[in-house]
């Protein structure tokens, strides 16, 4: 099912998320390119804004619901919705049902869409069923040097930590090194990062300490929030570790990566 020429593939609505849209556009382009390479027909409805996740976690369920309910009209004719962020995917897939309990038509459409909403890695694994092996990519020890994986918390409930780690690291080139407490939160937490900066920093310090001890040169980090947090800490400490979304690394291996911009 590989090759951009395949036209019978699933129609995928791409939910880029506001963080990727604004801070990590290259991640979005890479994810879309990989999906297209794997035969998906990718559409990006420009009317999308925020899925509502920050409002849900801030204790503003009505606000979150209003934003969620925009989704069915944005993605009217797609087989799946795919997002490069587990955080947004989990809001839609796991939490929307708690917010949409009135049984209206648009709620029903949202909940149907929710069942077809995927985080990028989970979509590759569970829907497309592709692996590096199935694409004829051999494991490669060179490439990115020492590489490791951070498990973003909001994948919990979508893809468990061990599966997520092995799925992602299967795709990458480089010598895999273990990251202690790879499934411990980095301390981002959205509003938490500015409301409790001291605790957020302490959690970040632990993550950076584990990362330093791992000796990794590249950190696979598939969540915009975690990337802002860990990347921000690394930059302040002057430590040159590359943070990459697995979509970028896959795109690079497949030769469909967008140019590395700013």
């Amino acid at each position, binding site marked *: 099912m590989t090759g951009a020429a395949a036209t019978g593939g699933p129609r995928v609505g791409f939910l880029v998320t506001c963080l990727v849209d*604004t801070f990590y556009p290259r991640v979005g382009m890479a994810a879309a390119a990989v999906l297209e390479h794997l035969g998906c027909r990718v559409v990006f409805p420009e009317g999308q804004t925020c899925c509502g996740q920050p409002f849900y976690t801030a204790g503003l369920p009505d606000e979150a619901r209003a*934003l969620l309910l925009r989704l069915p009209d944005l993605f009217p004719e797609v087989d799946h919705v795919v997002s490069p962020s587990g955080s947004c995917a989990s809001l839609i897939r796991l939490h929307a049902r708690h917010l949409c309990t009135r049984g209206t038509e648009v709620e029903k459409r949202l909940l149907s869409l929710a069942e077809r909403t995927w985080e990028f890695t989970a979509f590759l694994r569970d829907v497309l069923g592709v692996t590096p092996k199935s694409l004829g990519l051999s494991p490669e020890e060179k490439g990115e040097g020492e590489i490791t994986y951070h498990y973003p918390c909001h994948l919990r409930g979508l893809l468990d930590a061990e599966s997520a780690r092995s799925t992602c690291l299967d795709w990458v080139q480089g010598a895999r090194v273990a990251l202690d407490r790879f499934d411990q*939160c980095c*301390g981002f937490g959205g509003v938490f990062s500015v409301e409790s*900066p*001291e*605790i957020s920093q302490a959690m970040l310090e632990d993550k950076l300490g584990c990362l330093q001890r791992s000796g990794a040169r590249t950190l696979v980090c598939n969540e915009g929030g975690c990337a802002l947090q860990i990347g921000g800490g690394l930059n302040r400490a002057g430590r040159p570790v590359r943070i990459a979304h697995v979509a970028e690394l896959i795109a690079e291996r497949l030769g469909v990566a967008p140019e590395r911009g700013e």
Partner: protein
Amino acid sequence: MARDSFRERAAAATHDKRLRAALYSATTGIDARRRKAWAELEDVEALREQAASIKDRVLGDLDRYLDQVTESLERVGARVHRARTREEATEIVVRIAREEGCRLAAKGKSMTTEEIDLNSALEAAGVEVVETDLGEYVIQLAGEKPSHITAPIVHKDLAAVSEIFEKRLGVPRTDDPRVLVEAAREALRDVYRRCDLGITGANFVVAESGSVVIVMNEGNGRFCTSLPPTHVVLAGIEKLVPTLEDLAVFLRLLARSATGQRITTDTLLLTGPRRVGDADGPRSLHVVFLDAGRSRILATDQSSILRCIRCGACLNVCPVYRSIGGHAYGTVYPGPVGKVLAPLLDPDGDLGALPRASTLCRACADVCPVKIDLPELLVSLRASTARLPWLRCQGLRAAALALRSPALYVWLQRAIRGRLRRRARNGWIDSAPWPLAPWTRAERDLRAPPSRSFRDLWREREGGKR
């Protein structure tokens, strides 16, 4: 507690390197043992489901189970008391101590007695109280409060304990924990010989049999419940389980979750006071059931918090707890469970900052043996009693409204991008503008957005295709 003091205490704790080292090493160690113990269970998920549903059954029909347990306890010769408030509970225990002429109480580890601050009340009434759990004994010698539900001195390293023993018991400084344990044992044996009152909590009370179940590791509870002539049990009303068969489900989960043991070295099932022919046991057994807000919690959306069996597993995996320790919370119950339980038990306590101080990482939900969805409860508290400050709330509401419009979204995106890019040097900001200023006050920079957004790039690409 003073206003805003949670944040101050938490911030101070994060700067205490020794505290954080002790916390990390202890909590990660306990959790590693828990993982291993859980892995031994054939179907831990099914067991957790079963435990949750038993607790829900009890909580859904609590009055009936309370009547049943009262009948069972009285049948086996125990006296049952019901306390609606903390004050009533301390009054009941003090009255029992007075009536029985007690002067020295040997106390087993109990968070519920911490909740009602029983030691102070007894001491004010002239009853000396000695904690006999080793960790709690250290806490008492140090004049502190426990910082963890099951590991009260998790915040202390060996050197700190040795220092306390030197100061309070005259034991020369040592790095051999056995010396300290031996000193504590000597002191406590003397207490067991002299005490005339035993006080414990209960991990469970079995409704059908009237058995008080105490799960522990040091054998101290055995002395507290067998030597003194009077034994008082303080138990929250949510501690009931219907049958001994149900109890087995919890016993398989509790020790594994708390310490990674299959079962603790001592698991006592105490059914009534000393009977004719018994070699030991108290002449009188009193069981005090504490409400103190629990009935009220039962009527809220957060009632599932009452399933909690106080194993402490959620504390051990919580990255916030690992960073600040239990004392920073300023509540009897710290950690994820405390963030939900404390504001619910104490609605006037101005504890709204607690449910908000979480990244909702769900580590706690993954390890809760009774499947309490703690993050979901935190979110629901944030939507009710733990709201953000008014101004921030209104700001977020306005933002949510704006984000319903794609045009406003793009306008906001450009405005924020422009503002951040003007502050940036080499793509990074070391001093972020309001309202992100706290971001860069921590040891982290803020990435500046690239000049073009994803939607800009996508539009260019689509344009190029045409």
